[in-house]
């Protein structure tokens, strides 16, 4: 295949024709490695998990078929439903907070506030950190004795408000949601800013000619135009929060009183931590959760698409 060094001659067309006519082998070669890896490390594990969900899988014993026992057990599992509630709260509250704050920040940069280059870096950096680093850092920030939150509250004289943020069932989940908001808002801001910058300037000029005020321009021109981006970001953030594991695992491990238990941490606990040694039941949770996430994503995209249709 060193033909590239030769100039195109009349003698080459037959070979070229052959290569052209039969790219099937080329297609197979190009696709094979990716498909092999996909089959071995994604498809097979997923099928294995689905298989597990109807079996009792205990070490050193053959898998035992138990039908839908795990599914029935799951239906009556209070911790699971608590975890579902927490995760859904997270996946609803966090996207709204992230996208709304990010829109304001993006507007600020769009309106060319001073130091915008520095601000963009400062806001975006948290998303680059590992959840392990972020988790440890925020455990300190929420520390009762010397953490930044309580130190600040004591400094402004609100001593009574100081509390162990991650240790109290009522505050632990909101405290962790504040951490993911801290991490992801900057990312959302960058995307929204990109969408705003690509708006056609004629539209804004037309609005200006129509004597449209600052707020009017934002509400009636900019936001409707970037709405597809905003909705997209909400879906992305929703998917991310439905998977959340690392942060909880590093900081609270689901404590106190299952206040921060997410479905992911519960699966991990049941599979690798509790000494039940059964991989079947956690697999059932994973399968059910997989179905719920898929349904959620489909429903969201459906809902957003219909809204679009109604308006235009």
């Amino acid at each position: 295949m060193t033909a590239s060094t030769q100039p195109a001659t009349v003698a080459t067309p037959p070979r070229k024709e052959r290569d052209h006519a039969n790219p099937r082998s080329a297609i197979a070669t190009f696709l094979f490695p990716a498909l092999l890896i996909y089959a071995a490390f994604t498809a097979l594990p997923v099928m294995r998990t689905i298989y597990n969900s109807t079996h009792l899988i205990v070490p050193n014993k053959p898998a035992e078929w138990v039908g839908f026992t795990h599914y029935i057990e799951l239906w009556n599992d209070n911790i699971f439903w608590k975890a579902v509630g927490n995760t859904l709260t997270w996946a609803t509250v966090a996207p709204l907070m992230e996208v709304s704050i990010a829109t304001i920040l993006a507007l600020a940069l769009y309106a060319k506030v001073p130091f915008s280059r520095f601000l963009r870096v400062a806001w975006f950096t948290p998303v680059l950190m590992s959840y392990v680093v972020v988790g440890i850092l925020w455990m300190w920030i929420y520390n009762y004795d010397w953490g930044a939150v309580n130190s600040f509250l004591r400094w402004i004289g609100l001593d009574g408000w100081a509390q162990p943020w991650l240790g109290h069932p009522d505050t632990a989940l909101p405290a962790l949601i504040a951490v993911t908001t801290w991490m992801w808002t900057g990312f959302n801001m960058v995307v929204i800013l990109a969408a705003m910058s690509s708006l056609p300037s004629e539209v804004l000029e037309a609005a200006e000619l129509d004597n449209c005020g600052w707020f009017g321009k934002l509400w009636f021109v900019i936001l409707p135009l970037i709405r597809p981006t905003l909705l997209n970001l909400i879906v992305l953030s929703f998917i991310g929060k439905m998977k959340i594991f690392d942060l909880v695992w590093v900081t609270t491990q689901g404590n106190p009183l299952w206040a921060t238990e997410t479905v992911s941490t519960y699966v991990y606990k049941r599979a690798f931590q509790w000494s039940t040694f059964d991989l079947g039941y956690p697999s059932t949770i994973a399968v059910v959760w997989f179905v719920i996430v898929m349904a959620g994503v489909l429903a969201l995209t459906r809902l957003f698409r219909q809204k679009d249709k109604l308006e235009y």
Partner: protein
Amino acid sequence: MQRTLSPSGLRMAALLMFIAIYTAYSAGPFVWVAMMSLRTTTEISAAPYALPETLHFWKFASAWTESNYDTYFFNSVTIVFSAVAILTIVGGMAAHCFARYRFRFKGLIYLLIFSTIIFPPQVTVIGLFQIMVEYGLYNSRVGLVMVYVAIQMPVTIYILESFFARIPKDLFDAARIDGYSEWAIFWRISLPVALPAISTTIILNTILLWNEFLYAVVLITEDDKRTLPLGVLRFLGDQLEDVGMIATGLMIAIVPVVLIYVFFSERLIQGMTAGAVK
């Protein structure tokens, strides 16, 4: 025409106030951990928010040598580097295939690979654990590399495919007339022309895999095979009260990522936001 918004003075003041508060919330934690990384634990417990008086750079050396950090760092570098190299080649080949050829079930195969982006990792992780034990890839760096390739494959193919698809067809036709084989077309045209997209995926994959935790914690238990995030967590367990030392450990994990960001910020942002803008 300039396109600046021109809010009134009061609104601008409110906006600036909001920005100031948000920036403190966003950047404060880093400034704090950077300061603590240069102070000793005694100094920190006396005044947690004071500026460092003397800069204790020796702490970095001692965290590095005395806590296996060199091993964790080396593991992370080799695992991430190998995974990203394989991803770039294998993902590039598949993306080239999706962008250039028509074949049966193309849409279905693409959808199948792409839909795994939405999968919650739990649905793979248990089955993967069993399979890796059976393959003998449990507690193995090679195994973790393969898993990393698999989890980052969809997004890599997605970014590269959309770029490859925009390369003008004439370029390929010209190459065919010159007698290039299909492989040579990929290797000598697609890849060089798509270099911007390829560097985007390389940087994106490097950062995401450098930070990866769930698969590493499930598949690696031996200390000498731990990656940096696992190492940091172990370090936390060992030094529970030694806040100053842990802060130094955190900085060692943060610095490489920040360096990548400083040198490649545009590419990185492109990678992270790919697909989010519509």
